[in-house]
């Protein structure tokens, strides 16, 4: 099968959807002439003249204008440059985008995708390295997805664009150059928003993760296998809604749950999974739930400090061994 990068996979999704539906347009900073700061929009403006717009550096306009365009009948895909900048337009996300359908009694439909690169990369430091998914999953009205590989990057983006609800599409900056198998055919089975995938089968422990965190989940599973521990690994892909059924079915089998993400551990999305498991299936658990996330501090610049807050597969291995 053909191998392409995560970034190319998102581009293919965009191009296929924009060809299908002329109401789709794209706006954000540095996406038309530059092709996106990570190259994730490269060539799209040339392929679709007038439909890929370089905006002013005006996040409230990008987000609020996207909502208004969606209200008027267009299907915008907007780019947040870095997820960190969503703070600039949080009103537009929280109070307009997420609320319009509900507070207007179903009159409004906001078929908008907000793409936002996230995560730690190359000492980008405190304001360009965050993972803010937990914030966004706390807001009813938004859907939140975050793929971990090129195939899902394409299929999940297509599903997000198809959705009539606002979807936050979080894409790990580190994953852009990651290669993976993506079939060329356009009629792959569509991804259904909200579904997780069991990406590795095992009977001893369930490791749940998403996005860049999947590196740790799969890395740990490899190491554990050498020691005779068979980890089942679940890629959530979608965080709001999240696939409780798939996670719980696995935990009922393995009786152990470990959750890992790059975002700050305190009030991180792992807390939601852990709390729900404790509420609903605690009787199946043979060990306390393990949670991994960044320590409660901003991401530093110096390489020594940046490395310190990151999680590595070995961290999980040590903890998981302690569950037995």
């Amino acid at each position: 099968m053909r191998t392409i990068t995560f970034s190319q996979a998102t581009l293919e999704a965009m191009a296929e959807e924009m060809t299908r539906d002329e109401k789709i347009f794209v706006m954000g900073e540095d996406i038309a002439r530059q092709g996106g700061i990570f190259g994730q929009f490269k060539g799209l403006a040339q392929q679709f003249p007038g439909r890929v717009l370089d905006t002013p550096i005006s996040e409230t306009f990008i987000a609020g204008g996207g909502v208004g365009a969606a209200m008027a009948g267009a299907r915008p895909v907007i780019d947040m440059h870095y997820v960190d900048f969503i703070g600039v337009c949080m009103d537009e996300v929280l109070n307009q985008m997420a609320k319009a359908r509900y507070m207007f009694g179903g009159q409004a439909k906001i078929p908008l995708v907000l793409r936002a690169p996230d995560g730690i990369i190359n000492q980008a430091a405190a304001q360009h390295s965050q993972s803010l998914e937990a914030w966004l999953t706390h807001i009813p009205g938004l859907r939140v997805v975050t793929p971990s590989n090129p195939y899902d990057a394409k299929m999940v983006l297509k599903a997000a664009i198809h959705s009539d609800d606002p979807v936050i599409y979080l894409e790990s900056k580190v994953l852009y150059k990651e290669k993976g198998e993506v079939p060329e055919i356009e009629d792959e089975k569509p991804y259904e928003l909200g579904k997780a995938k069991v990406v590795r089968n095992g009977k001893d422990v369930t490791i749940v993760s998403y996005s860049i965190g999947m590196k740790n989940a799969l890395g740990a599973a490899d190491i554990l296998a050498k020691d005779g521990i068979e980890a089942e690994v679940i890629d959530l892909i979608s965080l709001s809604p999240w696939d409780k059924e798939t996670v719980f079915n696995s935990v009922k089998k393995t009786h152990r749950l470990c959750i890992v993400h790059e975002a700050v551990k305190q009030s991180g999305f792992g807390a939601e999974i852990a709390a729900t498991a404790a509420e609903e299936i605690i009787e199946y658990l043979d060990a306390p739930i393990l949670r991994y996330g960044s320590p409660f501090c901003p991401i530093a610049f110096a390489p020594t400090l940046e490395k310190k807050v990151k999680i590595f597969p070995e961290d999980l291995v040590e903890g998981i061994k302690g569950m037995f």
Partner: protein
Amino acid sequence: MSAKKNLYTKEFAARLYETMSTIRKFEESVKHDFLAGEIPGFTHSYIGEEAIATGVCAALRPDDVIASTHRGHGHCVAKGADVKRMMAEIFGKRTGLCQGRGGSMHIADFSIGMLGANGVVGGGYNLATGAALAFKNVLKTDQVAVVFFGDGASNRGTFHEALNAASAWQLPVVFVCEMNCWASTTPYRSICNVENISDRAVGYGIPGVVVDGQDPLAVYEATKEAVKRARGGKGPTLIEAKTCRIEGHYVGDPELYRDKQEVRKLFRETDPLLLFRKKTAELGLMTAEECDEIDKRCDQKIKEAKDFAMTSEYPDESEYLKYVYCE
């Protein structure tokens, strides 16, 4: 007959007066019922500012859209919403425009291009600008978007981001400032060192116009010109309509920050309905009796709206999750 008189028909004048009278009666009824404890939540009165929504919406096509404010009942009426369903919404009933999900601060009627009141001051600029972008660049229609906002909202950063983008891309959007001189409880000039908001238009390379916000004909003319520019691809206009906020910031506001007697005096001098009666009489367009007749009709219409709201059911509690997401 003077040339000026020939500008407008009797029907047009009567339509404007009827819209203003409907808004006035609607707001009086809401105020009464709110203070009587029959309407929950918050509500903000448009009394005294009726001429702006009326004049602006008279210059719009049915398929043009408006983004409104927390003080949005007048905009909703003027754009053509059914007052029965409006009133039902304000009472939180299932027959309301938003099926009881929104209330006064989130009243909307997408079927007539009223894209919603907004509980966030300054939240509407980008919505209207985005709608205008969709019309021009994506849907390729000649529709126009209008955003209403107050002088208080003019100090939000969103003002700048929307006006700049609208101007840069020459989008078909009209920015209508309702200069009522109060940002909630704070006098405008104590928080802004510029007399006219419309002067800011220079900074965006777009026309800025000051208009008498108590005169629906003046507002209509200014909007007509702005809409013509917008529809013709010439971009946005910033209109500043000078008006007065006769009621408090919200219904029930004790108004500790101003002299109520002065406000009452101001209202006697600037009541847009009285001024319009006088003007149309002078122009020979309408008689006092004709205006009285319209008032009576509007009174009846609002009474029926209230009855409709009062006799409607609340939404069934089993439906609380409906509309969080599309089905």
